[in-house]
């Protein structure tokens, strides 16, 4: 086992533990904090993959901005376990059923997949901005522009909602 793998396993445990924490903790603030931990672990994975730019953008955008907003909203709305209404039995039952079905589907999907054992061409510059930019503006230019239009419309929507009062 080389250090690379050691770090990989540690990060994986943290990421999965964090993800579990998100759904298992009853306090929404704790959930958000777990999610942030997960983001950090995922960013670590990016770094292991030599995608430093993605890693840091992940932190800036998700951990730094979006989660701050989440936390902000949760603090302002005063959401917490005491106030959250208890779900009805029927709803809980439906949840169990649908979760179980999803689990089965996933299991079936995993069963047929093959682990890719051939190493990807590990160029050290693969995660750098220049490479990323090349790909984004050539191969993926259409989806990229579409998503920017999506964001623009979301922004306009937010302004409209915010202007209401």
């Amino acid at each position, binding site marked *: 086992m080389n250090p690379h793998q050691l770090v990989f396993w540690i990060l994986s445990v943290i990421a999965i533990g964090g993800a579990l924490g998100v759904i298992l903790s*009853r*306090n929404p*603030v704790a959930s958000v904090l777990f999610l942030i931990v997960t983001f950090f672990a995922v960013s670590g994975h990016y770094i292991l993959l030599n995608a430093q730019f993605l890693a840091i953008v992940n932190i800036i955008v998700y951990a730094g901005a979006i989660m701050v907003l989440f936390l902000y909203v949760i603090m302002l709305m*005063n959401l*917490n*376990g*005491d*106030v959250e209404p208890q779900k009805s039995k029927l709803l809980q039952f439906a949840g169990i059923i649908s979760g179980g079905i999803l689990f089965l589907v996933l299991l079936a999907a995993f069963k047929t997949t093959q682990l890719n054992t051939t190493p990807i061409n590990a160029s050290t510059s693969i995660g750098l901005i220049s490479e990323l930019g090349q790909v984004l503006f050539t191969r993926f230019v259409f989806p990229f522009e579409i998503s920017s239009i999506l964001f623009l419309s979301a922004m306009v929507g937010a302004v409209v909602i915010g202007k209401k009062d």
Partner: protein
Amino acid sequence: MSAHIHLDEASIQKQTTTLNLGPTHPATHGVFQNILEMDGERIVSAVPTVGYIHRAFEKIAERRPYYQITPLTDRLNYCSSPINNMGWHITVERLLGIKTPKRVDYLRVIIMELSRIADHLVCNSVIGVDTGALTSFVYVFEFREHIYEIFEAVCGSRLTTNIGRFGGFERNFPQEAFDKINTFLEAFPRGMKEFESLLTRNRIFMERTMGVGGISAERALNYSFTGPNLRAAGVDYDVRVAQPYSSYEDFDFKIPVGTTGDVYDRFLVRNQEIWESVSIIKQALEKIAALEAADPSQKEVFYAPEADKYHLPPKEDVYTKMEALIFHFKMVMGEIEVLPGEIYSAVEGGNGEVGYYLISDGGRTPYRLHFRRPCFIYYQAYPEIIQGSLLSDAVVTMSSLNLIAGELDA
């Protein structure tokens, strides 16, 4: 799962938070409580509570001989104690029918205008502090220190001066006091300009104060506003002009008025009044010099000769003459003959019309003495003024109203 702000059920319903501003909140100067109903940072409604330093001035005044009330008045508006002292003396003098000589009047004017400057300086610099500009506050206090020194030279104390007696002053002004006034007049305009250029035209400050805490002239009058706060709303009512006392009619000065009654107007009105006060002091010094030039014996005039019956005799006489000693005893025992009667008399204090409603039954103490305390009267407009504004505005508005707790709570 207790890590959240406890809100009562009702406040979740109404989507607002109750915030307790004060009494130990720094912006409430330690003595006012405002229970604010907040929608985010916006104030939906406010309920002020006062009385945290209620000291029962009026009750005490009923148990004290007339001359012992002077120290009490010091502690009403302690930012400008001498005005209150003078107001009290003028009230009693009016009741007794004493006419003070011109020199005494002018000396009083000097002292009163100095204390007005001191009062306005505190108020305006505290607006600065509440908007976060601390430095100008310290600059301004250097000049307050000059004023204190003048008071100290005249009467021996800085803040609660106990200055003046019925009919005039306890003692003549020493030359040192005049020297200090002159140095103050020399140094102050420069410092005041500095203070103004730090704040007056600074965009941050202007935006913090413009359109904040405004009140219309009609509402201000209906709330019985007086003083700079009324003038900022555009009413040029000033007791010094409307009902002159202490020979204010001899002086040439302007009444600065604002238009919107907001914090910025109040700030500007106070600043402008400081400049007017400086000019009044200069005029008073000139007038005194003219009086003394015309008649050198005027130099020794510091109380009304006709007030002899109400003024302690000179100490030399007390030590040597029997009649003087007996009269001195009578005076200290408080057995001066005050005519029975009722009088309301007002002076323009730092905050507005400071009124004294005195009922005398001829006894040793006032039968009833009621202080019209401008702060108390206009603080009730505070909830109306800050309704709908932000928390920061409420803080600035409070300091711009210049609420002096001693005066407010009596």
